[in-house]
């Protein structure tokens, strides 16, 4: 559907990919109207830049934005996944060693195997996500008439559930497998140290009360025991 890709590039150029602006532009405002106003912290609001892309295509960035905002919607607990920087996180991960198959045994022959035998595809994560996004968009077009990122929030949720359950038909591998990889990446980006590009302003750590670093409790472990702590979370970046 080349005719859809061209205007999307235009949107992206003007709006930036990973920030709140991109989410609004790509969803035509519909998602914004239906979700409650996010309690975006001051720092997260400032970070809505035109993040340069290292690996992702515009269509992939748009997919990740929509997918991460479906999995992690903005609400009073945190900004949305993309507002927290998850597209930047994913872009860096897929551009780097992990994305390109480092620490992955890639010798053949390749056979599907049994579920107990785990990941058996020849694809690197970069290649896997590229193929998965194409398949997810094809499924979305066939079922809902548009690419995933252009669906209404309700249809996005329905498409996501169809992939989660495996009901969505993908040509090369199970849609559930794609969902699980997407889900794992969303959780990694949302909860990892912010130095990796996601979890901006430690939004997820604030949400759950994880203090991050420095975590030296030898003198306070007894004093803190059983008590709710209100510690300002600290990232690796706060110590360099």
């Amino acid at each position, binding site marked *: 559907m080349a005719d859809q890709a061209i205007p999307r590039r235009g949107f992206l150029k003007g709006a930036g990919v990973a920030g709140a602006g991109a989410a609004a532009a790509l969803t035509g405002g519909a998602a914004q109207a239906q979700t409650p106003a996010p309690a975006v912290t001051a720092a997260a609001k400032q970070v809505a830049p035109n993040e340069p892309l290292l690996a992702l295509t515009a269509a992939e960035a748009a997919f990740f934005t929509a997918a991460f905002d479906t999995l992690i919607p903005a609400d009073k607990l945190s900004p949305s996944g993309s507002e927290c920087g998850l597209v930047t996180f994913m872009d860096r991960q897929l551009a780097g060693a992990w994305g390109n198959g480092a620490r992955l045994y890639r010798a053949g022959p390749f056979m599907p195997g049994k579920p107990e035998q785990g990941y058996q595809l020849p694809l690197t994560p970069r290649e896997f996500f590229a193929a998965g996004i194409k398949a997810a968009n094809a499924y979305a077009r066939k079922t809902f008439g548009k690419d995933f990122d252009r669906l209404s929030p309700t249809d996005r949720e329905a498409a996501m559930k169809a992939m989660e359950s495996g009901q969505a038909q993908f040509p090369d591998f199970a849609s559930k497998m794609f969902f699980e990889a997407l889900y794992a990446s969303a959780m990694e980006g949302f909860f*990892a140290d912010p130095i990796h590009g996601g979890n901006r302003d430690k939004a997820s750590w604030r949400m759950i009360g994880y203090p991050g670093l420095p975590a030296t409790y030898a003198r306070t472990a007894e004093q803190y025991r059983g008590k709710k702590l209100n510690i300002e979370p600290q990232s690796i970046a706060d110590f360099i």
Partner: protein
Amino acid sequence: MAKVMKSVDVVIVGLGWSGSIMARELTKAGLNVVALERGAERTPAEDFVFPYIRDELKVRVRNGLMLDTATETLTMRNAPGDTALPMRRWDVFSLGDNVGGAGSHWNGITWRFTPSEFVLRSHLRERYGRDAIPAELQLQDWGVTYDDLEPHYDRFEKLCGTSGKAGNLKGRIVEGGNPFEGPRSDEYPNKPLIMSQAGLMLTKAARELGLHPFPTPASNSSAPYTNPEGCAIGQCQYCGHCEYFGCEANAKASPNICLHPVLFRDPKFELRTLSYVKSLNYDAQSRRVRGVVYIDRRTGEEVEQPAEMVVLCAYPFNNVLLMRLAGIGKPYDPATGEGVIGKNYCYQTNSAVGVFVDEEINPFIGTGVSPAVVDDFQGDNFDHGPLGFFGGGYISPTVSGGRPIQVRATPPGTPRWGAAWKEATAQWYNHWFPLSIHGTSYAHRNNYLDLDPTYRDAIGRPLVRMTFNYPENDRKMSVFLTNKANDIAKAMNARFTTPAPRTSNFGAANGQASHHTGGVIMGTDPKTSALNRYLQSWDCDNLFVMGGAAFPQNAGHNPTGTIAALAYWSAKAITEQYIKAPGRLVHG
């Protein structure tokens, strides 16, 4: 043509706990020792540095300190008739790498096995009858007893500055310790770690149920400590970055801090890193290895290192691989039950109950070692008469860091994503912990290691093929233990509990520990074991094989304490007997 080096007294393959202990003991006895380590140098001062070591994504999720599967991995299948496929990435477990091996990224849990585990076959037959052991199980005695190993356990605990509380001092049961442990010659060198909220809850609930909770022995030092080697160990900071991580406080014992400072100063010791041992030069006629061939990973060059004696201290899989490639010992055949190399591969039968509570747990304040545990349902600490299975495990809350990519839970029925998931995650992150069961893995005729016919490693050798599934016996054990843990969880007044016994197949997303044992097992008979009671090969007089590979079956306690005690035990036999009269220490 391989470059040939000058012969040395001893070559040690792999410098983790076993290799480091062996190197230290043999150099002290006057031998020249060369250690060949596949991996790179690793020093806490360079590699375990704050703040960068505290990166959950890089170090834990992406297995930053672990072996690269592209270099070396395994193939896996559940049963002998299946086609094994490679573990292309570490999902179910991961293997260590570099100097210090798994000893640098372990949790620090430091158990002694229960005395009956070392004589398991004899013990069960005596207690439950000659035909009591289920036909599917291939249980054996070790050839070594708890009493043999006791002084060596004691040495290892003092080397590590282990924190704990004795429960049996020279046969006297001591209140507050583990009443089921074998007699100890001495107290732990350090007091127990500070009890966490979950530890207090376990202790109270277990006592109400008539059980015997105590502080888990931890090589995460509760106070600054200097070990008998003169090496300094720091105080644990309860930072929650133990397993998979290196310790920046130098509080978690490792070969790197407990032995290397003295070992590396000894002129009789030489370490060669990035030296990947490819094969052993074995002469079946003389029953001796002449040395090893390794690849210098800096240049790719093959190097032959002759030696008077070789000690395999690599991971169990590599020890099996080297034995098989050299043709030492008869390969195990599950069809006949004959042969020894690859036999009795065992894992760990773990499960958990998720516990949702009102109390503030603060899971980020913790060590790799749960501060409280019950051992009442371990091994044969309870009567198995009517139960229909053997074995057991310990039950303890796993509160070891609350690192949020991986350690979160929501109550049953919560969606996995979206607004409701976020709300439940925020609500329960600080009010949940897993009550874990760490269980025995008993040897099954069909569970073994051999060479894969198809897949190869980075230097062209066959990958080791793992054939493994949880035996029926172990699944029944897991159900029983998980129910016991659920009873404890309910006694904590939990809001919800989520018991998850180990009832499905072993698989890539279905394991919970990197504890692998067997394959080159010790025993009393060369027909049924590869090593004698001193861990000397029955078939090759100047070859000793250390590590979990030597366990005839795996106990429900973590293996490191026993791996280290066996290394000290074997080193004693080498220095006191073998050096004086090189040859067979036991005649089979």
